[in-house]
């Protein structure tokens, strides 16, 4: 019996053994009790130690109310469908509460957490290395070395063992860190916590104040908590948050870039088929075929590609940005380049891209047809007109994501005009569940950080795509020429975003 239960638990019970188990249980209440106790333990262990399943009726009801205005008769059906997601959500449907910003030399005891990943409630277990994550509530945490942190919500986590430094400034104040001996509340700043295996907990307040129990500890104070004892003072030894980032010295990871075109040619006019350099492409640039044009009169103004030098002002540390760029002429210009490996929207993964653009007097133009602007679009060669993702900037200077039939997502805020701009996008692809796309346009004065920003200009909602987007299209329409340069695509922020090396300073 024990052997059968062991195999049942391991998932290796054969058909014959299943029959044997059935025979053993039939008419044998004692054996049935043993079996039921075993199953109760299995089920409880699974529910206790598996990833927590967040059940969020509030969110379920909320999603329904969004449809209420125009879909009253469907309300009941919608209730059932949305509720079913939340009562037993597939892991991907779980609400994300944090983002992994940086993983440097990380070894994980739990499953690997890639940079850029959205994190759901549950434990992350680091064996070695430095990991930085940002909670959606705004607090940031640095984990170093062997550390287990349980993410509870966008504003709360539990440190089970190891070391973290938390920075929770401004709106992020009020972040709660639970430890074996005390509940620590950030009152607007920065603190370090270490939990030893024995449960002994050390708190070091690096800036501002931290609340614990009914008391408050001020900056420059450190306390050691042991169960059943008074808190003891100790010296502050922990480095500050920014020092730790400096120590980790995050570097650009151009080596991870999957696709690249820097338009690195001498100034002049080329045939698209001559623009062959770069990385990750299945062929050179090309014009649209007739099946890829919406209207017969949408013929391009020119059939060649012009490389210019010096048209961009590039404050970012990008060598290629100074050497050559693609000038897209006035009128209509559409150029496509096939990717070797497309962006598979049906697969789990994250893709970032960046692109430099310069659009003279973009915001000052009269509204005309065709619409003024440059766009970067990802399409599928297998089904050109179906799913796509397209990025650009409206004439009102608001960044915009277009997801074909699935909608437009425009920013509420406008960007600066008359500047070279750095477009950065993030595409979170999910096999099951909602895909999420984020887009931000950086002006010349905006600082680029070692990791993605907490806020983007715009993002998608309710997006679900499944095509393989394997065509990159750069298009420009309107009255004046525009320049684009440095198209980068890769799996992480650092693979596509230019960064100054820390030792440059």
């Amino acid at each position, binding site marked *: 019996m024990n052997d059968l239960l062991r195999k049942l638990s391991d998932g290796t019970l054969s058909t014959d053994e299943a029959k044997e188990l059935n025979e053993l*249980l039939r008419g044998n209440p004692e054996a049935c009790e043993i079996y039921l106790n075993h199953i109760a333990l299995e089920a*409880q262990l*699974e*529910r206790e130690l*598996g*990833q927590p399943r967040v059940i969020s*009726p509030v969110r379920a009801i909320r999603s329904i109310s969004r449809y209420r205005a125009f879909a009253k008769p469907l309300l009941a059906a919608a209730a059932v469908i949305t509720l079913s997601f939340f009562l037993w959500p597939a892991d991907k449907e779980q609400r994300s509460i944090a983002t992994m910003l940086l993983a440097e030399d990380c070894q994980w005891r739990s499953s690997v957490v890639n940079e850029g990943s959205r994190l759901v409630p549950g434990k992350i277990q680091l064996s070695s290395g430095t990991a930085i994550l940002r909670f959606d509530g705004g607090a940031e945490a640095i984990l170093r070395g062997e550390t287990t942190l349980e993410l509870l919500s966008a504003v709360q986590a539990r440190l089970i063992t190891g070391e973290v430094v938390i920075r929770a400034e401004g709106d992020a104040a009020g972040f709660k860190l639970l430890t074996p001996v005390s509940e620590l509340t950030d009152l607007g700043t920065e603190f370090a916590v270490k939990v030893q295996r024995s449960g002994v907990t050390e708190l070091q307040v690096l800036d501002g104040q931290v609340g614990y129990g009914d008391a408050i500890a001020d900056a420059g104070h450190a306390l050691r908590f042991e169960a059943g004892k008074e808190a003891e003072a100790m010296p502050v030894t922990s480095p500050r948050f920014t020092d730790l980032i400096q120590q980790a010295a995050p570097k650009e990871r151009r080596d991870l870039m999957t696709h690249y075109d820097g338009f690195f040619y001498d100034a002049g006019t080329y045939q698209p088929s001559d623009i062959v350099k770069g990385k990750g492409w299945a062929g050179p640039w090309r014009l649209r075929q007739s099946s890829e044009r919406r209207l017969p009169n949408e013929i391009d103004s020119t059939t060649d590609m012009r490389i210019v030098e010096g048209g961009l002002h590039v404050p970012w540390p990008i060598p290629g940005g100074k050497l050559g760029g693609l000038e897209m002429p006035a009128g209509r210009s559409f150029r496509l380049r096939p990717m070797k490996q497309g962006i598979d929207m049906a697969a789990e993964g994250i893709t970032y891209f960046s692109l430099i653009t310069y659009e003279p007097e973009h915001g000052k133009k009269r509204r005309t047809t065709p619409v003024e602007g440059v766009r970067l679009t990802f399409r599928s060669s297998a089904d050109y007109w179906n799913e796509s993702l397209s990025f650009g900037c409206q004439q009102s200077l608001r960044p915009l994501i277009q997801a074909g039939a699935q909608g437009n997502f425009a920013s509420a805020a406008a960007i600066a005009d008359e500047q070279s701009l750095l477009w950065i996008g993030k595409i979170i692809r999910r096999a099951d569940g909602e895909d999420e796309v984020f887009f931000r346009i950086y002006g010349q004065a905006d600082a680029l950080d070692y990791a993605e920003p907490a806020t983007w200009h715009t993002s998608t909602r309710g997006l679900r795509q499944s095509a393989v987007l394997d065509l990159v299209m750069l298009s420009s329409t309107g009255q004046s020429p525009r320049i684009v340069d440095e198209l980068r695509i890769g799996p992480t922020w650092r693979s596509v975003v230019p960064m100054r090396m820390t030792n440059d300073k």
Partner: protein
Amino acid sequence: MIVRFPDHRSFYGVSENSDQFIQDLTASQNSLYGYILSLLPDRAAAQDVLQEVSVTAWQKRADFQPGTSFFAWASKIAYFHVLSHRRKMSRDRLVFDDEVLDYLAERQLEREEEVSRRGLALKSCLEKLPATQKQLVEQRYATGGSVQDIAAKEGKSVGAISQTLYRIREALLRCVEQHLAEEELA
């Protein structure tokens, strides 16, 4: 610049009755899962069925009489879902015949309270496990964890890991039993 507020900042009202129902349904997920797993001892299948049961329970929520046992009501739904799931399974994957299945289902109803006490005891027993054992159990019962994966990761044989896990489960069971016995004395 637009700031994306996390979802929790905007709540909408939920009516009191459906709120209570959702709470009941939420609270009984663990016992329902245990119920289903005992009749259909396959993790993936049991999870699928639990999801179906939750949806059906929501659809039939008007039939539930407040004040009566939610688990008893929902487990009936679960029983029928297990039967219908069995009909779809190939014969060689069936584990229990009707006689055994019915006995187990009936017995589960009587055991409801004991099982929840076992759950509570297990929590404190887990805390008492030595760190290395606890880590192993955590890996095995983490979502998607398996003996095979652990063996590959640790560079040990599947048999060795299986045996260790078996011993840990035995120890946990003994610890749980002891807790229950002590409770009865108290």
